[in-house]
């Protein structure tokens, strides 16, 4: 089944819960300056996501039994977090991408663990890295980061805490350390004859 027909079939069942179908663009079009999606996709409203996904999996003409990929994207300019689901059907060999837009200040989306069990860890990872809350997930804990980590590191406005368990999370750059110790002795040269681009100079004399 082609992607348009998939969307039409879902739309006939769920009305305006699904919207904004876009066919995937192929080839290099220099005139198109906008956001070009390369896969067939449609959007779904968060509150009816589980119903739509269950329909996509169980309907005899859709049979999307495989959740290929689950991704979260932080569109900070649009103030959106997006949860992206790539679905594939092994029996019928068609695929579609479903996107769910979430407000950045309250990124809650129903969990699809009940539909595809593989969503379990994928959702935990996206929660861990992007802070998308998958409501109804049986075990929504951090997966990759330590349990007591603060913040969600893949968010675009994430700032790492300076200390983690009394360990500094950053170190001096070796180049900065050079400037601390050897500023008076070494200076960067643009002379190509100087190996390494640096040359030694005598330290300035001080009066003390």
């Amino acid at each position, binding site marked *: 089944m082609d992607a348009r027909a998939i969307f039409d079939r879902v739309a006939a069942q769920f009305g305006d819960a699904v919207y904004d179908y876009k066919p995937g*663009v*192929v*080839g*290099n*079009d220099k005139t198109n*300056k*906008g*956001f*070009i*999606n*390369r*896969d067939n996709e449609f959007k779904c409203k968060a509150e009816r996501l589980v119903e739509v996904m269950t329909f996509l999996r169980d309907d005899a003409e859709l049979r999307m*039994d*495989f*959740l*290929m*990929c689950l*991704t979260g*994207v*932080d569109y900070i300019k649009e103030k959106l977090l997006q949860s*992206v689901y*790539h679905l594939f059907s*092994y029996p019928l*060999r068609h695929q579609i*991408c479903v996107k769910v837009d979430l407000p950045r200040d309250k990124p809650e989306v129903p969990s699809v663990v009940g539909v*595809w*069990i*593989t969503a*379990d*860890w*994928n959702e935990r990872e996206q929660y861990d*890295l992007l802070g998308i809350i998958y409501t109804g997930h049986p075990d929504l804990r*951090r*997966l*990759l*980061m*330590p*349990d007591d980590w603060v913040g969600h*590191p*893949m968010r675009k406005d994430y700032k790492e805490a300076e200390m983690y368990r009394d360990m500094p999370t950053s170190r001096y750059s070796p180049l900065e350390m050079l400037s601390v110790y050897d500023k008076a002795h070494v200076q960067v040269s643009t002379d190509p004859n100087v190996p390494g681009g640096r040359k030694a100079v005598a330290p300035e004399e001080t009066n003390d």
Partner: protein
Amino acid sequence: MSELIINYADSGEEMTLNMGPQHPSTHGVIRFIVKTDGEIMSSAEPDVGYLHRAIEHIAEKCTYEGFMPYTDRVDYVCAMTANHAWAAAVEKLAGLEVPPRGEWLRIISDELDRISSHCIALGAMAMDIGAITPFPYALREREYINDLLEMLCGNRLTYNYHRVGGVGWDMPEGWRDKVLRFLDHFEPTIDEFNRLITNNDIFVARLANMAPISGSDAIAYGLGGPNLRASGIDYDLRRDAPYSLYSQCKFNVPIGAGAMGAVGDSWDRFWCRVEEWRESVKITRQALDEIEKTPKGEFWIHPKKLKPKGDAMARVEAARGEMSCYVVGDGSANAFRARFRTGSFNAMQVIREKSKGLMVADLVALIASLDVVAPEIDR
């Protein structure tokens, strides 16, 4: 997960054991929290993240082409397909074409690396359950492939060979003959390997009927590659959703049939990989024939001003299952978001489910039969 290392339950004999992270048979740094009564486990909960290097975050910090060496580290045992996944995703995103010679070189390098990856998987699996000899036999063949790939791209493990728009280098003078000579040598060693271990009675008795995964389970858990096909699902991305020039190659797809026990048991997964060796050899031979018809030197169209805006997802058949790469570009030279969907990540979830009721020693065999590699889980 702050449980004690050994902890007896108040009632009964069940205790909680810690396996890993530095356990040689976990194939990397993975920790399992095993609840066991004697030898029988009631659960084995994987705890991952020890190798998390934020590769997806690094992708946002470097240019599309500059990220290529990092993709080697997504799966260092089969780095070529990770290269390919990233290159294919970015090419799809930017609408780029790859010249045929580049595609054939990609296929040859992919398949050689797949053989080398299965060498590690099969040798290590046999070693994990106590058969030491097959490991050096498999590793011996892998060394030849490492030499061949070193001639091709200068590296033995993390190749950094594929490029956005093609591959980094053409094959050197005389390389094609060396690969053909290796394939002639390698094909008989598959039969030797089968005599040595695959059909060995003790080995079969150990693995047959162990932790069978049904076809519907395999799909629901998102398994891919040999693990999926061992469960009887007839699906191979190279044949059914052909990328690159795989549509021009003729090869069989080995499907697990439960020859020694149940469909999808650990022996089937082992056997599927052995048979994939043969298919990879076939594909490599065809690609080496085809590449002779393409003009020398046209292996890479260097993309100028690579600043795509949009999103794309590319799927590649990697050695540990389907590897898909989802890239979002925002019109700058860096990716806005990159995500690698890897086979091992999804295979780990099966272990928790299938370990119930297994012996502790069988957990090691189950991990090895799914061929998980820790950096691919954590990225």
